[in-house]
């Protein structure tokens, strides 16, 4: 398994380390429920060093990149980030990604670990001069309502001025740190990109703060799902398009991108299954892979499901026929045929991410 610069820290903190997309990463420290609640009420730090980072410089390279992805990079002002996707020619997902504009002619792109090799291969062959910085870049996320004051308290004062999806290049303890006000939890939070050598000192400095606790992949998953955020490789993959995943808002139709023709055809034909939020009225939860039933008829499949600690019931995302994807529709799921109801996202509406 591949290791992040923080693996020894996780072990020393009692983290339960698992294989995630080929990376040794902690799934939990104190326990998923406790880490989840702590993130919503205080602040947690997450090791996301497994993710991919790419730097793209110059007008020609940016244009080549723009022609690949669903995001119109011309709409991203310096110091801002936007969410989008890289698709296959068939319109299926290779990965979802965040594009940041550092300056007038420089982009920084963040992708997931699971399909990193594939994404890197596409970028390397299509975007001249692109630099893959994944191996030498560590990433620490701090998420939770106290994140801003914590970063300010350790000298990262630039955090205070950032609006949601804003970013800036800062310095901490002599290390360059790219700071973006983004995250995967629904809470006020920041993602910090730094050289590998800075990871351990920054992680320890953050943990010194009495309000900060470490959190693992388990809490990351319950937090993101309560917001209805997608997990690449699970909710979206090569067999699903952004239309099916109901990510229409992140497709800029005013420009070319890979997979555009396939999406136009699908959009015009209609009738495709759509990713739909579902929940239970008990603590019993739908689970990844559960079939969804109307009576005895199979009408869909659950791609993500868990107990939602902040909403105190089972929540999930399922691909359903479009006529069933209406709030209030009741169905059943899984071998025990638990009752589910179609609802709306976010499941959890009190997140502080825009505060």
């Amino acid at each position, binding site marked *: 398994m591949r290791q992040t610069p923080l693996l020894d820290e996780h072990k020393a903190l009692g983290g339960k380390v698992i294989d995630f997309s080929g990376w040794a990463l902690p799934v*939990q420290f104190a326990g*998923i*429920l*406790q880490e989840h609640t702590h993130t919503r009420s205080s602040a947690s730090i997450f090791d996301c060093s497994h993710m991919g980072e790419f730097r793209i410089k110059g007008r020609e390279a940016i244009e080549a990149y723009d022609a690949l992805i669903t995001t119109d990079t011309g709409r991203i002002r310096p110091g801002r980030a936007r969410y989008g996707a890289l698709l296959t020619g068939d319109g299926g997902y290779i990965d979802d990604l965040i594009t940041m504009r550092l300056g007038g002619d420089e982009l920084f792109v963040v992708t997931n670990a699971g399909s990193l090799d594939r994404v890197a291969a596409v970028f390397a062959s299509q975007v001249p001069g692109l630099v893959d910085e994944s191996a030498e870049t560590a990433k620490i996320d701090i998420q939770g309502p106290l994140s801003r004051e914590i970063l300010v308290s350790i000298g990262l004062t630039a955090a205070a001025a950032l609006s949601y999806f804003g970013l800036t290049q800062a310095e901490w303890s002599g290390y360059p740190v790219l700071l973006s006000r983004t995250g995967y939890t629904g809470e006020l939070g920041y993602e910090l990109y730094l050289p590998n050598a800075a990871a351990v000192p920054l992680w320890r400095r953050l943990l010194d703060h009495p309000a900060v606790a470490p959190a693992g992949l*388990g809490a990351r998953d319950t937090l993101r799902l309560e917001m209805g955020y997608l997990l690449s490789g699970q909710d979206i993959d090569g067999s699903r398009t952004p239309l099916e995943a109901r990510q229409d808002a992140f497709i800029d139709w005013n420009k070319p991108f890979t997979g555009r023709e396939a999406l136009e055809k699908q959009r015009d034909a209609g009738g495709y299954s759509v990713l739909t939020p579902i929940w239970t009225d008990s603590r*019993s939860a739908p689970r990844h892979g559960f079939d969804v039933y109307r009576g005895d008829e199979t009408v869909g499949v659950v791609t993500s499901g*868990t*107990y939602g600690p902040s909403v105190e019931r089972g929540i999930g995302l399922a691909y359903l026929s479009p006529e069933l994807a209406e709030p209030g529709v009741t169905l059943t799921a899984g071998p025990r045929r638990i009752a589910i109801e179609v609802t709306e996202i976010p499941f959890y509406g009190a997140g502080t991410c825009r505060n």
Partner: protein
Amino acid sequence: MDFPEGLKYTHEHEWIRDEGGDIYTVGITEHAAEQLGDVTYVELPEPGMVLDQGQAAGAVESVKAASDIYAPISGHVSEVNQELDRRPELVNASPYNDGWFFKIAEGNLREYDKLMDCKEYARFVEDQGV
């Protein structure tokens, strides 16, 4: 990990305790609770339900997983731990006491005697390598 003596254990990581008076208490082992992580929901059988050994008798869910609960021996359900509806975390906090699941009356003693004791179960867990 140590497993209490005087209990019997199943390959499904359940324990069963002879309470005398033909009553047996059933729960999941500390090892199972640890593997599941934070337990969030327990589905219990209906009191009075007649169980055959190995029959699904409920389910236990955690944040990250779900699994069925099976009847370790034949008998009928005499009582269920309703406290778990409100406090499923008792399964993690006290797997052998407050976190019990249900009781079986008129249990099949022959089936009970054939289940693993704590040493055999410890070996079974070790062999599974988890």
